[in-house]
């Protein structure tokens, strides 16, 4: 259970990086076709259990160092990831989960290099949330990626596409 929760968080952190990455010329050309999308029901299951919420330390603040694996606890129904150094600074993400759906993403810990500001992070996160919650719109019939297991298939965008076809 615990591992599953961290996988979800890893994805959220990377999603944030992806948002920052939109400013790269290479990325934006590859993404030019409206290629960032989201299938319904494709988020990881709500796998957080009692063990995944750290002891109540505190909210935002420069308290954890890179490589540390725990940080501030969030409200019930949320899972907070480790503080990670993502190259431009340090951040942790907190994901709110309802049932099997991610209902919100926030950044309780962020320390950025001077060219990136909290304001940028505040702008970036709603974009990420939009991506997380948006319905699929890329008009694709399949997703290519590293081979998933039979178990992982159930959570994949491909499964959502397959399901959408049975009507």
């Amino acid at each position: 259970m615990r591992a599953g929760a961290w996988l979800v968080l890893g994805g959220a952190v990377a999603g944030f990086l992806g948002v920052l990455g939109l400013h790269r010329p290479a990325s934006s050309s590859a993404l030019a076709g409206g290629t960032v999308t989201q299938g319904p029901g494709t988020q990881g299951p709500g796998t957080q259990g009692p063990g995944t919420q750290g002891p109540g330390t505190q909210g935002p603040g420069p308290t954890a160092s890179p490589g540390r694996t725990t940080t501030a606890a969030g409200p019930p129904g949320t899972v907070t990831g480790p503080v990670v150094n993502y190259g431009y600074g340090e951040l942790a993400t907190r994901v709110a989960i309802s049932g099997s759906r991610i209902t919100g993403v926030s950044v309780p810990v962020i320390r950025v290099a001077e060219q990136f500001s909290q304001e940028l992070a505040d702008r970036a996160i709603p974009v990420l949330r939009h991506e997380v919650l948006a319905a699929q719109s890329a008009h694709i019939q399949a997703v290519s990626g590293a081979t998933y297991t039979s178990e992982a298939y159930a959570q994949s965008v491909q499964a959502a596409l397959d399901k959408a076809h049975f009507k």
Partner: protein
Amino acid sequence: MNQDGLVTHAEPVMGTVVSFALHPGELPGPDLRTALQAACAVLQDADRVFSTWDPGSPLSLLRRGAPGSAPPPVMAEVEAACRRARDASGGWFDPWAMPGGYDPTGLVKGWAVGKALRTLDQAGIPAALVNGGGDLAAFGMPGPGRCWRAGIRHPWRASGLAAVIEVHGAVATSASYERGAHLVDPRTGRPGCRAASATVTGPSLAQADALATGLAVGGDAALEVIGGLAGYQAYLIRPDGTESWTPGMQFATG
């Protein structure tokens, strides 16, 4: 059948799920089902022969050097395809450099899915796409004036896409984000990966599958090799998130 008129099917096999999207055209329902069953039988047969999990599979016996029954003819077919892919990749894909001896796993799934797709073509289905757990191939057109489109999964966000490409033939992606550090660098014999995501397109899914494995291991060096192959294109996302692709890579627009 969905709103696009496509019939879908999901077949659990080879430790993953293989997804089918078929355009039935005028083909009667029973013929469609028969064709689909034949395609699935191809996959199940390949699983039996090339399973590395089943100690009694012909591949496992071959790897152990166990005496006894002669390997089935498809074994030689796959071995020949592996040799072609090893040469084409400049050695970045090398089933003979794997720990524990010859291991064609990096090519077998693509080979089997490609074979299943040809079964559908031969049965008279006008258009089909088969996705073997992330490695896919298609023929025909899903609708008038439309071509098949595939998303490339975002390496760090399972439900996001890094890009969308038009599918003309085969698309294979290799990375370590799903099944962990399974990629072995043939030059060291140790786990090694120089890509967050490595995609190869081309006419043969067997070759694309193997080349994607080589691209993931070799990174930029392998991208250059694949760029020189006729009919094949590559799209690399490096571990730091930067990207590169060969000039002919057909990203979808709009």
